Structures are given as C-alpha cells and as structure tokens.
C-alpha cells in the first residue's frame, strides 16, 4: 500500500531512511493518494529553483505527518493545526530560508483555523500548501470542515447535514478575502491537464517566496481513495464531478507582481552593543554616600495612597530611586488586585540598611495620603510615632490619630500656584526631604534630572521640590 515517487529530484532524500520497516524507497501513501503527486511537484520546484538546500519544511498532523521522511530539507514537525505558527517562528528567525507549511483540511481548516488565518493576515513570507480531500484520512475517514453536505464519513455515517455540521468551508476564498496574502489559488489533482495547472501553481507559490513577495496559499483538491472507499480512477472522477463543483477552481487573488518585495533583512545587534541599546548604561550621576547626612534609624516603611493620576505610584518609585542611590536596600510594590477598586491607588516602599524580606508594608512608618479615602483607610495602620502626611488642599478632614507626627501639606495648592497641579507629588517629596532625615536633599536634586528629562518639566519640578523642601524645613524647625 505505498507508492513510489518516480524520477526522484534533489528535493527528496535518495532513500527514505526515516521510514520504519524495510521499504526505504517508497512513500507511505495509499495508491491513488494525491499527497505523493503534490510532494513531487513541490520537490521538483525546489530543485528547479535551486532552493532545496535552503528549504525548511513544516510537516503537519494528518496523512502528511511523515513528509519529513521524504523532503531533503530542514524538517520540523508541528502539533496539530499549528504548522503556520511554527513556520512563523522559523521564518522570522531565518528570513532567507524557504519555509513551507503543508497542511491537510482537518489540520488547517478545523483545529488550526486560527493559526492559518493569522499567519495569512500577517502576510508571513511563506508558502502554504493546503490539501483538501474533504476527509480526515490519517485518523480513519472522519468528517473534515470541507466534507460535503450529504457526504458519508465515519463521523457522519448518515451524511453531513446542514443542520448539524453546517456548510463545508471554502478556505481559499476566506484567505483571499484578507488584505495581506499575495497569491491564493485553488487547483485539483484529477487529470493530466489539472495536474499541469497544479504544478504551475506550486511553482508560483514557491517563486513568490523566493522573490520575498509574502504569503502564498495553494489549495489542492486531492484524492483519498481509501477514505472515500473508491478506486484511484473513481477518485479522480469524483473530484471533477463533485468536489470541484463545491470548491471552484481558480485564482482568487494574485497581487504578487504588484507588491514590492518585503524587506526581510535582519540586523541583529552584537552582544557588546546590547547594554547601550536597551538602556543599561550607567548614568553619570555618582553619589558619595559618605557625604550623605542620613539618620542611623533610616529604615522606613512607606505607604503612599491617593487617586489614580495623582502620581502616587511615581512618588513611590522616586523615593526608591533616591534610596537606591543612597546605597540602601529598596523595594516598591504597587497596590495590586482588589485594593485597586474604588479608584484608589497605593504603593508600598521599603528603604532599609538590611536585605528586605517582605516588600509589603502593613504598618507604615510614613503614610502619604493624597485623598480622603486613603487617609481614612490607612490612618490606623501607621505605627505609633510614625508620620502622616496629607494633602490638606484636597482632604477636608484631619487624622484622628494623635500619637503620630501630623504634617498637613497644601500640596495641590502649591502645585497650582506653580502652574501645574501634577507637581503636587514632588511638593510632598520636598516636604519629606526637608522634614525627615532619610532623604538627602542633595541626592534628590541630583536624581530629579534623571526622572524629568525634558527641561521645562525639570524646571517646574525642581521649583516644586524647593517649595516643599522649604515647607518641610519650616515644619521641622
């Protein structure tokens, strides 16, 4: 039950060593099966265009799962339906290679429906051969998405019905409706004439890829005498009399000549250049930690909370950035999950001389509340002797706690006077630097230019910081 591929081209291995058993000369396909014919057309085209050695062939799941027995190419076998995704990974890595995705109707139109649509839609520079024989051959003659209405299969023993399974899918038409594909044609393997037309389509599909023209899709109406329970001649006749009537032949799209070749060149950076390219160069700001005037009891657990958009998370990040440059261990974590609901955002910042265990702040030493719900929600968590800073221009109540340091800051008002309410978080940063002993104002002023790269933003934020710093110092005094 196997056919020999006559006139073996360089596109095939000399002998099929991967094939189990003693027969290393012939394919595993049934007599009268279209796969062997199509394989031969592809191998010949690869040979004629002298690209066989650059070809990577993606074998699908289905009867052609063992295509890698035969094609003298780099071979990769894909999971069911995933050949276009695998081919995408291959082609993107090796844009100069010729990548062929060869799939059957179950593989391409059923389980792999998504993969083929999106590979086509992206216009992946590959060639897809879609073998449509209206049945699952390999698994025992079950219904395919292309099985005809009324056609009996092992899973439609009474015939496919419109009510139960719907209409057969015309993949060439679907693919042709997308913008990206450059060439979509349906051919058949029935008689000499139709096979000649199929051969031409196969060559077109491969030539398009050689010319970097994008995605080509060739649907091939093919025979399955075993699945159809017919002889080989009956099968060819059935393609013409029945299958072709449901799947009209023709070119559904051909814009290969109109489109410019794709630029598939790769420009991989040498490893040594990578750090600079991904922003890992050391910044110029050097800190002399010996000159910093930091308290011995520097360890801080800070919670910052407010509305989204007030710069709550950013303020936490800046505190951490400053701490990092003060050679402290630092961690920052945003509120995450249910706490985000209700429009409040908060983050947890830890600054420590020791390695930080949990990054979560349950009992803050410092609470920065930028709206009323945040003050109400977190006030009770602050440790005794800790500090609560709040934006007194937005919050119309005061903290109830009297065992903590209370620092009202008209941050939004000050920011408004400076001309940009968004700087209210920098005002608070200034107050913290002026009031507390864990932020060195000199370090902060050196870090701000790293954060605000645009000159006008830096200027206004430096002003905001200065205002806050003065206020903080005044409060401290």
């Amino acid at each position, binding site marked *: 039950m196997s056919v020999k591929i006559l006139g073996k081209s360089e596109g095939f291995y000399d002998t099929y060593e991967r094939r189990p058993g003693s027969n290393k000369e012939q394919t595993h396909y049934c007599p009268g099966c279209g796969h062997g014919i199509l394989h031969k057309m592809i191998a010949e085209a690869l040979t004629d265009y002298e690209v066989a050695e650059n070809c990577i062939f993606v074998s699908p799941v289905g009867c052609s799962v063992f295509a890698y027995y035969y094609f003298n190419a780099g071979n990769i076998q894909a*999971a069911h339906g995933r050949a276009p995704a*695998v081919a995408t990974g291959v082609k993107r*890595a090796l844009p100069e290679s010729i990548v062929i995705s060869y799939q059957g109707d179950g593989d391409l139109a059923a389980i792999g429906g*998504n993969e083929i649509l999106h590979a086509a839609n992206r216009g992946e520079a590959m060639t897809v051969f879609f073998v449509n024989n209206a049945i699952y051959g390999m698994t025992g003659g079950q219904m395919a998405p292309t099985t005809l209405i009324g056609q009996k299969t092992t899973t439609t023993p009474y015939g496919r019905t419109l009510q139960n399974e719907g209409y057969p899918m015309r993949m060439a038409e679907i693919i042709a409706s997308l913008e990206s594909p450059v060439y979509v044609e349906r051919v058949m393997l029935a008689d000499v004439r139709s096979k000649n037309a199929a051969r031409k389509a196969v060559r077109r599909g491969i030539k398009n890829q050689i010319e970097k023209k994008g995605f080509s899709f060739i649907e091939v109406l093919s025979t399955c005498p075993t699945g159809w329970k017919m002889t080989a001649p009956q099968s060819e006749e059935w393609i013409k009399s029945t299958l072709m009537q449901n799947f009209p032949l023709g070119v559904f799209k051909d814009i290969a000549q109109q489109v410019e070749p794709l630029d598939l060149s790769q420009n991989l950076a040498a490893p040594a*250049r990578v750090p600079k390219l991904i922003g890992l160069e050391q910044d110029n700001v050097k800190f002399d930690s010996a000159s910093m005037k930091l308290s011995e009891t520097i360890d801080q657990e800070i919670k910052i909370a407010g509305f989204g958009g007030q710069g709550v998370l950013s303020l936490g990040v800046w505190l951490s950035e400053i701490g*990092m440059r003060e050679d402290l261990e630092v961690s920052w974590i*945003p509120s995450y999950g*249910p706490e985000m609901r209700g429009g409040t955002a908060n983050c947890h910042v830890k600054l420590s001389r020791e390695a930080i265990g949990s990054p979560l702040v349950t009992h803050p030493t410092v609470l920065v509340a930028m709206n009323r719900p945040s003050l109400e929600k977190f006030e009770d968590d602050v440790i005794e002797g800790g500090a609560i800073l709040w934006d007194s221009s937005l919050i119309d109540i005061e903290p109830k706690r009297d065992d903590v340091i209370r620092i009202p800051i008209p941050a939004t008002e000050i920011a408004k006077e400076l001309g940009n309410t968004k700087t209210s978080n920098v005002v608070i940063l200034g107050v913290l630097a002026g009031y507390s002993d864990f932020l060195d104002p000199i370090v902060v002023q050196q870090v701000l230019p790293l954060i605000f790269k645009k000159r006008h933003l830096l200027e206004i934020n430096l002003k905001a910081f200065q205002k806050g710093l003065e206020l903080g110092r005044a409060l401290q005094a």
Partner: protein
Amino acid sequence: MAKQFVKGNEAIVKGAILAGCRAYYGYPITPASEIAHAAALYMPLVGGTFLQAESEIAAINMVYGAAGTGIRAMTASSSPGFSLKQEGMSYLAGAELPCVVVDIMRGGPGLGNIAPEQSDYNQVVKGGGHGNYKNIVLAPNSAQEMCDLTMLAFDLADKYRNPAVVLADGFIGQMMEPVDFPEPVEEFAEKKWAIRGVDGDRLNLISSIELDPDDLERHNQKLQRKYEIIENSETRFEEYRLDDADFIVIGYGIVSRMVHTAIDQLRIEGVKVGMLRPITLMPFPTRRITELAAMDHVKAFSVIELSNGQMVDDVRLAVNGAKPVEFYGRMGGNVPSIKELVHEIKRMMRVL
C-alpha cells in the same frame, strides 16, 4: 554594569536579551503583560523579533519554530495562558527544544483573578502536558533573580535541550527593586541539531514522533536519564538560619521573602526557626531536605504556599515520614501578613 530600579517583569526581558534571546512571541495577560510590553520595546532595538501572537497556543508554537532554528527564544504568560501552552510544552519537551517560558502565576482555577497565587506548581513542575516529561523550573524571589534566573534558564535550556520555565508570581513580577545587570553573554555553544536552512542541516529533524513502541520507550528513557543528570547537577536552594533550627519552613518565590521577615521576628523571641528556599523546583532539593530531616536538631518542617498545598507533596516525599510536615496555605490571591505567618508558624510548631 548599570544598577537599575526596575520591575521584576522588565528585569526578565532585559536579562533575556543580555542572554542572547532574540525572539519573543507572546499574548497579553495580566499580570504578565509588562513582559510583553518590555519585549515589544527592546527586541526591535537589538534586531530581534517581537510578535504578539493570535493566541497563547500560537505563541508557544512560534517559540517551537524559532527554537528549532537554534536561536534563543521565549514567551511569557500567566496561569490560564500557561494552561493553553501545555500542548506546546509537551511538544518542546518531546522534540528536546531549548526555550524559556515565563509563568507569572495568578489566582485560579478558571478565570480566577489577577492576584498572586502559586497554584501552577503542579502544572509546571510536574509536566502538565501529556507524556513523561519535565520542565526545568526556576523560582525567583526578587527582581534581581528575575534577571539572573532568566539568564540561567537560557543556559540550562541549551545545555540540556529542554524547555525551562521561570515560575514567579504576580508580586515578584510587579515589584520594583534595584537590579545589577550582568554583562551580555557573548559566546554560545553551537547547536548542530538545529535546522538553519543551509545544506549541512538537511538531515536534521525536529520532531517528537517515535512510531515504534521500543523507539519511543528508548526516547523516554533517554529523557528520564537527562532529568536525573539535571537533578544531580543543577539543584539550587538557599538556606536561612538553619544551623540550629528546630523547625524548618520551606517556601519559594514571594512566600520566601515573607517567611524571611517572619523568621527574623521569631528569632528575636528566641524561637529556633529557619528556612529552606528552593530556587530550582525541578530539580527539587529533595536530597538536601532528606539530609535535614535526618538531623537531630531538626524536629519538624512546615511548607507555606500560596496554594492548596502542591509543593508540600514533594517535601513529604523527601522527608519520607522521618519528621512531621505541616502546611499553611493561602489562596485566591490573599497573601499572609507577617503577623499571620508568625502566628501560624508558632501554631504549627506545637507539634514539637
């Protein structure tokens, strides 16, 4: 090189690129999306590929194709996405393709929520897809390790021709910490098995098919031998205050950070407790746990997880009845407070 204050998820991408990864295929999902964002930002700058795939399934199969050509390729997702990738994981393991897959675990089952859990332990460490395979699994507990273990994952994946998973949780992914980025990897071992679209590779085949039962059994045996070598050579763990500990807490990822703080507090009270943190979950530090279980001063173990108790099974196998093994877990995205951990550790220590 530069010390930067970055999110764990971003550290993964920068580490991957430093390790020579030039292909990222992914699908957006909270709380792993920053990985895709960073990859989209940086991959083009180094001439690499970033592609947002049509699905998690497509993404892992694109990685399969890219890895087949011998380049360093990766994807990342979160729990429900990893479930979808399991088919691909099995194929990658079967075809022995090296690649790195990141799983930033979130709450399940089903859609669950986006808060951190550690409930993917079984589906990642035990294989999860079909067949007798294992992933190499690394469990970072800091932004620094998100970088370092991602880089290590690429090396181990290549060395053993095996998919490697970086298994982290939403916390480690979202957290920002200073990261000392290492120098880029400059030299890579040649992959003679790869398909590169050149004449010399035409006898190469990337496939997981072995039709003959004897061949497939041999292939499976070869895989098991490989896992054994990995277990013998690549086990990594961290110990904290174990020298005189009566009670050993075992936790990985974010839990280990919290246990660390809880232990410091308990030690102040004079409680002799220490921690073992598995850094590699496959290979699991079985041997070390067995050794500890045999020590006189060690009276009992406790495993703390953000799950219903998945890693605890591996600890119980390692302890093998020598000492009691207690368990405390939180689920649903709830994370225990330090106070809660201190209380629970004391409660569990009543077995002593």
